């Protein structure tokens, strides 16, 4: 299994009450389970099947992913900025592995 490495981009600085655009990308093959290897055996499915972003303990977006999401899943969405600074990103992989990263919003 190749390394699962999240990359997240938040705005440099945000103001409370405004929407902040968040860009996330996680390195992952997103193996669909439809491909065959050179000897004709089906390569088992191994994808990120769920992605969540929580801000200040509240859900921002909860995404269900299928095999039709490209390799290295990219997701872009908006957070409604309040007082909290912690943004928690979580990726759930087939087979139960979970990858979490926490980032800080700079409010000001």
């Amino acid at each position, binding site marked *: 299994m190749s390394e699962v490495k999240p990359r997240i981009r938040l705005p440099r600085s945000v103001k409370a009450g405004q929407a902040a655009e968040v860009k996330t990308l996680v390195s992952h093959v997103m193996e669909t389970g439809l491909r065959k290897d050179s000897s004709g055996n089906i390569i088992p499915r191994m994808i990120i099947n769920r992605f969540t972003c929580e801000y200040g303990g509240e*859900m921002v977006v909860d995404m269900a992913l299928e095999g039709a999401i490209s390799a290295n899943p990219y997701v872009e*969405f908006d957070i409604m900025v309040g007082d909290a600074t912690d943004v928690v990103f979580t990726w759930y992989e087939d087979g139960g592995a979970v990858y979490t990263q926490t980032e800080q919003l700079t409010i000001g």
Partner: protein
Amino acid sequence: MITRRETMALGLGVATITLLPLRASAAAGDAIAAYTGGAAVTEGGVMITAPEIAENGNTVPITVEAPGAAEIAIYADGNPTPGVAVFKFGPAAGSNRASTRIRLGGTQDVVAVAKMPDGSFMQAAVEVKVTIGGCGG
């Protein structure tokens, strides 16, 4: 006699908006019905931003937006499995918009179905022409 090619060239804009939603294949239709629980789906209210022509079906950028929606589901009716993604917007969401990159096995309609907080559903579709398919043969 108007050929298929001419028709496509002629009415891309109009056809994309008016005709394509009716052409969703049975597989995508079933998947959408499973998502909506068989509820009626009205046309419009969902904006899909996707390229008209995607050179590489392995990674096609798509943005969906539906003001006020609780959820938006994306379907690709020409893929081996039509389901693509479901976005659920939580209380901390700053908009009802999300972007991602998807795989398309060939030229096909991409359908976005929005679930509104009152339990109603709206949908829109766009056709994306794919030069190289993205399902690995």
